[in-house]
């Protein structure tokens, strides 16, 4: 019914899709698998009309289509349910379902008709208890998911794309989601289902397409009886070469961080581990496994119960306290959480340790600049002009500036969240070397990455997380990518 052939999508500096094929039949659940960055999200956005492909064709019911905007895509009968639900919290259930195609005459909304129609759709989805007049903001995540699906149905969608629909759902709610999906497919609707959870794909899926590095590496595998090992190796057999510095030259010293029974309700629970000076500890897990949240909790940027000891002393005073005590965080979202884009590289580097460049609040700008220049040279930040606005630097160089920020002052522990996200291959190797050097100097490093090879190649010890719990802890050299992915996706504690 829906065939995509040779789809290419180029972004500045990245070839996000590099020849993707997809073939979806009416009435099937077609699963899309791939690691982070494999191109799943971009592919969805092409179908949703949010991105236009640079090359390739989309055929729907035998005719070539080009969804040029989200409205086009909806008219064609493609509906997308995004990972982050795109509902308006302040509007009612019915208003959300019919957003953009209201029951209206001359601009006046016919609320009664909308509510009736919404009730019908919701009943069909098996949720007559969700009242159309309820404000969406008051609903549970599961109910929001149902509303999102009702919206897709209200468009009379023939292809429904679901991006990690189960991520926000509890176990019994997933069962209901599957029941709805089965009803839809029975009516001939095609579902493109994206999930990291292999067991779900086995339960609900019919066929599987695997993406890797923007390409299709397998089309139409049977979902139920393709061996896990085959799927995992399709996902991981990569072209990207990782160049890791050798582990020699680092001797873990005394313990700098001890985390005991750290818990945040609904996010992670009972997490305990330690990091020693000069040691790199990696957290491996999926989005939503609690990995970034654990980092934030250790940093004091997120409330959690349990204890965090830095060099044996308790620091529970928020970020101001943890930074003063020698912690530093390079957050996941570089632009949103770390950088002052309008400011110079220098100002960004010294942001975390300003008091060290000041006497009675008076900035010693000469010393500030000299230090920034020294670090820019040390990390080889290019172009080598620390007075440039940081927005003009490439992602890799911006990330180096964030790392440089925490080379100042006496840091004892660095928390790195996805340090190589959006960084090209060459700059990655440089960043790895920088991180390695930091550890050599006796700084403890806690690293989060969604790329398993990165965690394995860089870390000395690895904690594997699944749904907020540590399911495995061990030396990186004793693990391989297959085993870690297996644990992450199937939850088999080894």
């Amino acid at each position, binding site marked *: 019914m829906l065939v995509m052939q040779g789809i290419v999508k180029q972004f*500045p*500096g990245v070839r996000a899709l590099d020849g993707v094929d997809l073939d979806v039949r009416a009435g099937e659940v077609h699963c899309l698998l791939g690691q982070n960055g494999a191109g799943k999200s971009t592919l969805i956005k092409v179908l949703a009309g949010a991105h236009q492909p640079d090359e390739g064709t989309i055929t729907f019911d035998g005719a070539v289509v080009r969804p040029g905007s989200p409205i086009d895509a909806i008219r064609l009968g493609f509906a997308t349910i995004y990972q982050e639900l795109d509902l308006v919290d302040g509007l009612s259930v019915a208003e959300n379902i019919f957003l953009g195609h209201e029951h209206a005459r001359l601009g006046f909304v016919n609320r009664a008709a909308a509510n009736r129609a919404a009730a019908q759709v919701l009943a069909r989805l098996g949720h007559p208890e969700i009242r159309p007049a309820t404000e969406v903001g008051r609903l549970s995540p599961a109910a929001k998911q149902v509303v999102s699906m009702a919206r897709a149905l209200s468009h009379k969608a023939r292809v429904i794309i679901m991006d990690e629909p189960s991520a926000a759902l509890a176990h019994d709610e997933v069962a209901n989601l599957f029941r709805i999906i089965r009803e839809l497919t029975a009516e001939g609707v095609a579902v493109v289902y994206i999930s990291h959870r292999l067991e779900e794909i086995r339960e609900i899926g019919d066929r599987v397409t695997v993406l890797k590095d923007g390409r299709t590496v397998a089309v139409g595998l049977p979902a139920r009886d393709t061996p896990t090992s085959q799927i995992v190796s399709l996902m991981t057999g990569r072209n990207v070469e990782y160049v890791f510095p050798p582990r020699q030259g680092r001797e873990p010293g005394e313990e700098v961080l001890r985390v005991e029974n750290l818990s945040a309700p609904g996010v992670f629970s009972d997490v305990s581990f330690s990091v020693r000076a000069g040691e790199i500890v990696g957290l491996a897990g999926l989005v939503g496994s609690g990995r970034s949240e654990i980092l934030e909790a250790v*940093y004091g*940027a997120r409330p959690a119960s349990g204890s965090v000891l830095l060099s044996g002393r308790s620091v529970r005073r928020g*970020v*101001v306290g*943890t*930074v*003063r005590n020698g912690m530093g*965080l390079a*957050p996941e979202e570089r632009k*949103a*959480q*770390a*950088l*002052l*884009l*309008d*400011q110079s590289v220098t*100002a960004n580097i010294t*942001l*975390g340790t*300003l*008091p060290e*460049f*000041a006497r009675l*609040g*008076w*900035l010693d*700008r000469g010393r500030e600049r000299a230090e920034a220049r020294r670090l820019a040279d040390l990390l080889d930040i*290019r*172009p*080598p*002009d620390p*007075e*440039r*606005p940081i*927005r*003009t*630097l*490439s992602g*890799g*160089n911006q990330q180096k500036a964030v790392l440089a*920020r925490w080379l100042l002052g006496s840091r004892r522990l660095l928390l790195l969240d996805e340090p190589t996200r959006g960084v090209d291959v060459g700059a990655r190797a440089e960043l790895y070397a920088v991180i390695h050097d930091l550890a050599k100097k006796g700084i403890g490093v806690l690293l989060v990455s969604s790329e398993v090879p990165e965690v394995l190649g860089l870390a000395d010890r690895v904690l594997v997380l699944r749904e907020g719990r540590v399911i495995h802890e061990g030396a990186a050299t004793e693990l391989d990518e297959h085993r870690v992915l297996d644990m992450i996706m199937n939850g088999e504690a080894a």
Partner: protein
Amino acid sequence: MSEPTKSQAPVGEGRAGPLGATVPALRGLGEMRHVGLIGALAILVVVGLVTRPDNFATASNLISILSLAATIGVITVGATFVIIGGGIDLSVGAVMALASVWATTLATQSYGPVVMAICAVIVGTGAGLVTGWLIAYGRLVPFIATLAMLVAARGLAQRMSDRKTQLIQPENSALVDLSTTRVLGIPLLVYIFALVVVLGWVLLNRTTFGRRTYAVGGNPEAARLAGIDVRRHTMLLYALSGLCCGIAAIIIMARTTTGSSTHGDLYELDAIAAVIIGGTLLTGGRGTIIGSILGLLIFTLITNLFILNGLNTSDQLIAKGLIIVIAVLLQRRNLKERAP
């Protein structure tokens, strides 16, 4: 109006080479960012010279322009900090009125002019601390918190003064001397204005406080994760704005010889307008003191020209409205060019 040089600077994607070499040279012209504002000022001066050749360029007219600018000018310095820090302060005019009333009650006046001035500063700073606390720790939206302070401060000023204008007593005339005593032909209060501008510039550009102000306004989450106490800093920004209102109260008392609950009506709008015209983003993180003061001088000159030429004050308001729109449109164009 801001930074024409930067918009021309090529945006390299992190490659070294000739680009990197040309940029420092362009940066030397950093002051160019205000060239549009200075141009606008120059045009207004020419208009003044042409339309009123006899009495525009006189010493008394120029001094009256500066005296007029001094009161709002001091407030504008505080407002610039608040807006760069990502906030807004609507309460400035009312807080200034309250400070002027509190400093001119018979009780305060009995302690002499120095105590009166200190009183004005303390009242202003105190009011700023209260709004700042509400915003930073009470999580109120700045617009709402400062709107509440606007209404409440005005009300308190009316209550304290019983809605009467309070004259400065003859024995406290030393305060009035600030407007009558001249050094090099310029009234003392203009020197106060200049001093506040210089101190404000130093604070914003040469201290950790100023750097943090840009950080808190530009990306509060990044500031927080870099270990900056964003809430405390936010509170201090409003306290600083209040402090400026207190100083402005001293100036207006000197100029009018009174304290009154009607002082400073709609000053908040003039101050915010001056800051916007000066190129400071209302979303925070970018802006300069010099720009704000140039914006304010443009506003004051327009008022002066309309008065000198005997034109309708309603037209003057229309002209000011147009200038705000034009300034913002020009800034937006510059921003677009700068976008990566």
